[in-house]
């Protein structure tokens, strides 16, 4: 990879065990700043497991054990001194199914900044909410009904609300786990457009089952299979002439 690019996060020999059973077998992978990296591979390959290691979401799963090191700006996020709540503010996450809180649109976005003490006044909080909704490309659609419940929005709008919620706490990295799989093509296009905008300020890792989406939104692609990293490289290369046979077979629909 280009040496001018800064490494934002780095996984070093990351292994994950669920109840003693190995799910990831030693992944070493760099995530570059202000780039989108797509994690691809068949179901059960470990791509979501790896994504969840990046903000310690695996901590919440009983019997999960993570070994190896994961660095954020060269600091190990599994170090005992790390505050996990603060870590998850720096490394935000957007899930497959939009999951707004059963609260108003405004409250969905204001929740994070409030618990992290990011706003000193109501005016400041209003500003954060508005800016986050603008960045998530949702503000114009909801500005007249900020106090309606979040779940009243369409699926695509709910997903952008979740992105606004993630952005509101000023994260450095945004993890997305199949963020468009429950959305129609128009809503998907809006999210993809948004990912491209967000890249200027954030580092993004996205898990997707859509090869076309990975090819469209990412600059780097990492291919996982059976808990191993098969190949990582520039997206343009991976989708035109991958080096590994397994990658070729997967992206051309010849797998298994």
């Amino acid at each position, binding site marked *: 990879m280009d040496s001018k690019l800064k490494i934002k996060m780095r996984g070093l020999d990351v292994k994950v065990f669920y109840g003693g059973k190995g799910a990831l077998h030693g992944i070493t992978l760099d995530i570059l700043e202000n780039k989108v990296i797509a994690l691809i591979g068949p179901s059960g390959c470990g791509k979501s497991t790896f994504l969840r290691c990046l903000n310690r979401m695996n901590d919440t799963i009983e019997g999960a054990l993570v070994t190896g090191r994961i660095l954020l700006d060269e600091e190990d996020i599994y170090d005992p001194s790390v505050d996990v709540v603060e870590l998850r503010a720096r490394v935000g996450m957007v899930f497959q199914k939009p999951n707004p809180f059963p609260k108003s649109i405004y409250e969905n976005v204001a929740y994070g900044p409030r618990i992290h003490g990011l706003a000193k006044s109501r005016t400041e909080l209003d500003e954060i909410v508005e800016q986050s909704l603008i960045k998530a490309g949702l503000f114009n659609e909801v500005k007249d009904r900020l106090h309606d419940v979040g779940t009243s929005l369409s699926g695509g709008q709910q997903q952008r609300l979740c992105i606004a919620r993630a952005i509101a706490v000023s994260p450095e990295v945004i993890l997305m786990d199949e963020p468009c799989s429950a959305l129609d093509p128009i809503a998907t296009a809006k999210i993809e457009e948004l990912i491209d905008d967000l890249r200027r300020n954030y580092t993004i890792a996205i898990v997707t089952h859509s*090869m076309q989406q990975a090819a469209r939104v990412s600059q780097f692609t990492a291919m996982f299979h059976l808990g191993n990293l098969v190949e990582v490289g520039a997206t343009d290369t991976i989708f*035109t002439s991958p080096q590994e046979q397994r990658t070729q077979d997967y992206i*051309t629909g*010849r*797998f*298994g």
Partner: protein
Amino acid sequence: MPTQHTVRSFDKELNCLSKKIAEMGTHAVHMVERSIIAIVHDDKKLAKQVIADDIFLDEAERKIDEEAILIIARRQPMAVDLREIIGAIRISVDLERIGDMGKNIAKRTAILSDVRQADPFYHGLEAFAALALKQLNEVLDAYACCSLGRIDAVREHDDEIDSMYTSLFRELLTYMLEDPCNITVCTHLLFCAKNIERIGDHATNIAETVHYVITGIYPALERPKDDQTYRLGAGK
């Protein structure tokens, strides 16, 4: 290594494309062969057939274009599949042009018939065409069996075409210098030779495309260019 797609009909579509390319290739070779026979043996009827045959390649090229576009729209192909489809589009263009070259040669049969010369005038062209067609056949074989080794062999022999073209050019120039009455026939034969030389270039293009389809990388652009005819004149 799994060679088939999970979706079998995708394989069928790709096979259909390569089959069409093979058909175009056979047809193009046949057209050029017969155009040379027509010129050399003064066979105007055969020349007419060759000219009429060209439409097959025009239609086949268009058909390949249409099917390739449909496959791209339907399957959103990646990696080797994508390269194979783009390769088919490119190769069909080269083959269609080769057909045009054959047609152009055939068209000169009528005028050459009026100024018929002794056999030795045509031997050079015949041998030159045989060499270019050998190259073309090898490229088409390499395409059919995805053989990188054969492709490299074709590229290595590319300079033979150039040097043969230069010597044929020189030979025809000599005939013209000997007797101005030879100018008409030699000028037309020179154009035929130019067409054959172009066929060699198209064969090399196809070789490069096949190399790309197989490896994902284009071979180095620089290859020895031995065509010296641009320096040849009556006084040299």
